[in-house]
């Protein structure tokens, strides 16, 4: 089976080649020089990832959108401190997560009991929505995914949105570093993978 190694840390060494590393890098540089429009490509690329970071922390869709936007606004003041696209991703993920905690605390204080808390039950994800998936493979994946502990679901949901070279950067920013040399599978993905390989619904093409 072919083994795919992802970026081994340090800008410019990622397997995705210089293109992907250079483009956001160039956008960053232009933005630092006052051309903020240059950031819009980076915004489009990273928004889904950041939004899922906030969702995985238990925020509603709208709250997540607000936290993501506020994070980008706060980035502006810090742009000069951020030297590489990997550092940018790490900073944004960390800041979004903190923003999400703050928002969650605030809503908790405003609605101390009852319905609100139910609505904010752990894992705000779509939940079992198996009937909406047309492929048997996807249904199998979704079933096993929901058998994972909540913490694993949150991690995998987020890293799945990350561009592959950012996999390790994102996991690390989430406080779950995977591998010191190259990114390794990690416990959560290993668990899901083992369940799936035992399920003919996934392994039979």
């Amino acid at each position, binding site marked *: *089976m*072919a*083994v*795919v*190694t*992802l970026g081994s840390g340090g800008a410019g060494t990622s397997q995705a080649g210089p293109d992907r590393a250079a483009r956001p890098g160039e956008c960053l540089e232009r933005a630092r020089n*006052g051309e*903020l*429009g240059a950031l819009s490509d980076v*915004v*489009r690329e990273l*928004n*889904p990832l950041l*939004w*899922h970071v906030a*969702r995985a922390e238990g925020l509603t*869709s*709208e709250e*997540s*959108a*607000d936290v*993501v*936007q*506020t994070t*980008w*606004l706060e*980035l*502006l*003041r810090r*742009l000069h401190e951020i030297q590489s696209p990997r550092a940018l991703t790490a900073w944004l993920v960390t800041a979004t997560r903190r923003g999400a905690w*703050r928002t969650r605390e*605030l809503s908790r204080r405003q609605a101390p009991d009852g319905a609100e808390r139910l609505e904010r039950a752990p894992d705000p*994800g*779509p939940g079992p*929505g198996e009937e909406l*998936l047309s492929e048997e*493979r*996807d249904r199998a*994946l*979704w079933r096993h*995914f929901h058998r994972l502990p909540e913490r694993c679901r949150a991690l*995998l*949901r987020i*890293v*799945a949105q990350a561009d*592959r070279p950012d*996999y390790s950067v994102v996991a690390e920013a989430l406080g779950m570093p995977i*591998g010191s040399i*190259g*990114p*390794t*599978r*990690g416990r959560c*993905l*290993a668990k*899901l*993978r*083992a369940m*799936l*390989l035992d399920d003919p619904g996934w392994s039979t093409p």
Partner: protein
Amino acid sequence: MTDPADLPLDQQDLAILDRLAAIHTMLDPPPADLDERVTFAIALDDLDAEVARLREQQTVGTGARGAERTRTITFDGESRTVMITIVDRQDGMVRIDGWLAPSAPLRVDLRLPEPEPHRTVTADAAGRFAFDRVPHGIVQFLVQPPEGSAMPRLVTPAFTL
């Protein structure tokens, strides 16, 4: 034997992550206008700004059958709080009444999407300001610091009227 968790990612792992991303994107997509909101909000001419976070948002009334619909939004910055009330007008536009706390007669800019020009008012001594006949759409507030102050201006997130 090596723990499977310590092995590098292979094609099978990548296939799992790809499908997981696709399923989440399908079942729980970000709001359609998220990119637009962020792009609009950060298209500022000066990087130095204090960000006021959305604290609270409330809507009263339905706007149906002539009933007035009022939306109140509070943004918290470190130096100041901006509270605004948005009321629908009969002509399809909105009126915005705002209040700065602590109060100060500061310049307040309302950013609208191009080609609409920015609108500018100055709050009164009690911190009150108003914008009338504002079209629906995406907007953002900028509150300028007191004259001679070394503080940055205050910016709110962009939101839709």
